[in-house]
């Protein structure tokens, strides 16, 4: 329940729901112009709606791999985008749009996040100098946003978020031409986006085979839908907990869950830290939406809890804490709810089960950049993204200047990559994203720093290793970039993991829980026995034509198991050299390279 003081200030919040419904219907007919505050609330509602559907979007993976994260990436990008506007009373629309654009640019995570940031940038450009805007003006801005999104991608592919934003912009233009008000405009945008998303499998065969729609497109649809619901006078609860998958919109209510009063974010430096056990312990303490990422020496913890003291005490027992950030979600929720209620004369009910309001999801934790021991990096410094303690050591041993944790589980934001590049004691930086979904955010860094940046588009960790090995201590930045780009083409990569859903792709039948093998990013085999999967994956990457096989074993695999697997591989490929290296990567039992 709300505390008395807050509720007392807004007696209208006690009014009945039917009053609100009537009000909402009336109100939706009258919105013809948006100011900065309208834009802010609409976008925050869109963000909240997106956040609610995050896990559903994460599950929309072409291959049934366990690390799908489009929903997370888009949500976190929107969090960063809305960070600076949440508490703003700014009335000028263009100011709000600019802040959204800047926040998204810095916080963009994953390729979908980068495209989303370009969409927000395009909208901001379209609204330049406009304190308020009409449906027609918004439609023009959205058209510009779609064009910018296409430009952000080197080879645009239809059947993705790009198609969805373009078709939505077309629908917006048509709707505005019919004289639509804001609510009708967004209704039309959402209808078009929905249809567009449902057509993505027809445009992209990989989606059709996997039986999914495009995740990025779906994310954009959720963002638009949240905005539309705002124009209808609805408010949206930001449910973050896994239990709240089922989405229900409570008209005229703003949700507050008193049980989850504080967002707690901190870094722990320690020894032998275990991601899973830390997450489980905090969850057992009552932490909700707990995210723990990092390696055995450095963890980033993010949770929502009614008892932040308990979580921090536990953190201290693990090691030394840093960058502790605690926010009172309830207070923010109440403030946001109160503002909404004031603005829209909404009914304010305080019993609905959701966790955060749109206004509270603003905490973006300090990026945990691990600075490798200072070494002679010379004029050119290499910054690499890596997940797993073993991988961090491999990259350190190859002389990288700093490592940004993440990749497979958590894609680092543009800001995190930028910070690592800025902190590196070299004026020329080579960035190794080491994950296909980090490449675009890495490319954004170049525009944000005075340092010379070269991104080698490594889409796997072994490619990152190949690139680093090709680094020539005597070469210029250009020479090194050329050599490193050439080097990554010579390595074949197999990834072995467990299927998170049943699917049939390229006549391969995958049952949920099967061991699956991907070669160079494509599913090639599935079986219940890991040995058969490894053997088939190695065969499919033409291992017999290569000289050296490197087996990087994951966090869930022991060195003993890995050595036994290596013995098997030696039997299958007796003339190849085999090396076993601890990778410690999450989810993937093995990452194997042949070169």
């Amino acid at each position: 329940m709300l505390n008395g003081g807050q509720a007392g200030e807004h007696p209208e919040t006690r009014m009945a729901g039917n009053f609100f419904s009537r009000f909402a219907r009336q109100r939706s007919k009258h919105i013809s112009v948006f100011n900065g505050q309208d834009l802010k609330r609409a976008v925050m509602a869109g963000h909240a709606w997106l956040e609610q559907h995050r896990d559903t979007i994460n599950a929309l993976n072409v291959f049934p791999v366990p690390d799908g994260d489009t929903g997370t990436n888009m949500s976190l990008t929107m969090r960063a985008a809305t960070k600076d506007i949440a508490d703003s009373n700014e009335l000028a629309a263009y100011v709000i749009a600019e802040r959204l654009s800047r926040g998204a640019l810095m916080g963009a995570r994953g390729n979908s996040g980068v495209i989303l940031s370009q969409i927000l940038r395009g909208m901001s450009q379209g609204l330049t100098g406009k304190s308020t805007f009409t449906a027609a003006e918004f439609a023009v801005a959205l058209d510009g946003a779609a064009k910018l999104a296409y430009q952000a991608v080197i080879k645009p592919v239809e059947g993705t978020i790009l198609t969805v934003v373009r078709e939505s912009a077309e629908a917006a233009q048509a709707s505005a031409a019919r004289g639509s008000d804001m609510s009708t405009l967004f209704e039309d945008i959402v209808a078009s986006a929905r249809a567009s998303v449902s057509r993505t499998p027809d445009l992209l065969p990989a989606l059709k085979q996997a039986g999914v729609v495009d995740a990025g497109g779906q994310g954009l649809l959720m963002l638009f839908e949240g905005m539309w619901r705002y124009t209808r006078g609805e408010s949206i609860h930001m449910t973050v907990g896994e239990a709240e998958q089922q989405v229900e919109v409570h008209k005229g209510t703003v949700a507050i869950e008193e049980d989850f009063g504080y967002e707690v974010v901190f870094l722990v430096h320690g020894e032998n830290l275990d991601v899973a056990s830390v997450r489980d312990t905090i969850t057992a303490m009552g932490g909700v939406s707990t995210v723990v990422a990092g390696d055995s020496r450095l963890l980033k913890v993010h949770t929502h809890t009614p008892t932040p003291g308990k979580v921090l005490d536990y953190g201290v027992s693990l090691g030394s804490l840093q960058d502790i950030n605690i926010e009172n979600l309830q207070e923010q929720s109440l403030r946001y709810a109160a503002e909404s209620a004031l603005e829209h004369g909404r009914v304010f009910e305080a019993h609905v089960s959701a966790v955060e309001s749109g206004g509270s999801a603003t905490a973006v934790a300090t990026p945990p950049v691990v600075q490798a021991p200072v070494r002679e990096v010379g004029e050119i410094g290499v910054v690499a993204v890596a997940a797993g303690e073993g991988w961090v050591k491999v990259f350190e041993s190859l002389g990288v200047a700093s490592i940004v944790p993440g990749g497979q589980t958590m894609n680092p934001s543009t800001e995190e990559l930028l910070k690592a590049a800025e902190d590196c004691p070299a004026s020329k930086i080579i960035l190794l994203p080491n994950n296909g979904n980090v490449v675009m955010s890495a490319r954004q860094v170049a525009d944000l720093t005075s340092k010379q940046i070269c991104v080698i588009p490594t889409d796997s960790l072994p490619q990152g290793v190949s690139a680093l090995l090709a680094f020539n201590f005597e070469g210029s930045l250009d020479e090194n970039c050329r050599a490193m780009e050439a080097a990554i083409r010579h390595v074949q990569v197999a990834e072995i993991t467990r299927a998170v859903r049943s699917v049939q792709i390229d006549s391969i039948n995958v049952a949920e829980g099967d061991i699956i093998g991907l070669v160079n990013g494509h599913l090639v085999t599935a079986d219940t026995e890991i040995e058969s999967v490894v053997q088939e994956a190695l065969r499919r990457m033409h291992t017999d034509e290569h000289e050296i096989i490197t087996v990087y074993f994951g966090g869930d695999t022991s060195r003993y198991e890995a050595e036994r697997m290596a013995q098997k591989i030696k039997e299958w490929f007796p003339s190849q050299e085999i090396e076993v290296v601890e990778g410690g990567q999450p989810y993937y039992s093995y990452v194997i390279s042949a070169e």
Partner: protein
Amino acid sequence: MTVRVVVDSTADIPPARARELGITVVPLLVLFGDEEFRDGVDITNEEFYRRLATSPVMPTTATPPPALFEQAFRSLIADGATGILAIHIGSELSASYSTSTTAASVVMRDTHVPIEVIDSRTVSAGFGLPAEIVAAEARQGRSLEELAAHARDLLSRIHLIAVLDTLDFLQRGGRIGRAQAMLGTLLSVKPLIEVRDSAVVPLEKVRTRSKALDRIGELIARRGELEAVAIAESDETVGKQLETVAQTFWHGPIEHFALGPVVGTHAGPGAGAIVALTRQ
């Protein structure tokens, strides 16, 4: 005018060719524990690499006493040399140059025969090839000044890029120089190094042997228009592989040098280098 050329054994010039060109080779020393061998005299390359692979003690190297250089100079003068050009391994890699300089000053004081001692700042065929070129010119009666100037000119245009099987031997022998940056790699790699200005300079790390060999070729070919190419090899297989690589960018004759016991002690088994003399 009879000028004679002297090198230390790290020039890795095959004995037959040294005899043919009239080059005097002063052997450095290789020690397996208490056992001492004169490089190329008391131990063959095959025997050395066999022992390197099997010996419980790792070999070390040493510079012979100045007397050995003195002896070499005096015997050439007794033979009628009117000038001596001595070329040595880079002075920061071995004491050969400074020992020879000491010996030369003693001999010059006694005999008044000019002796020019040159610090090659490189190793193996890096100065073996220039030494062979000036030795051939010496036989045509050119003066010591001309020969010394040409030797310095040739050495300024020499490039030596090598692949090692491992950095362990370089590290053990303390000749690692800036290649330190390559140490500590968790993966097995084939380091590419360059010997330049008397130091071992790291270039790249390559995962597989065949790519490492190809890469040496690419790097050498980029150094400019070539005048001569030589190969220094620890065994015949490496020599043949490097020759195939060199033939992709060089169509003239290729001289082979055998990485002898002293250089082999620091480079380890399986090492090979392409040496190129550029026009500029």
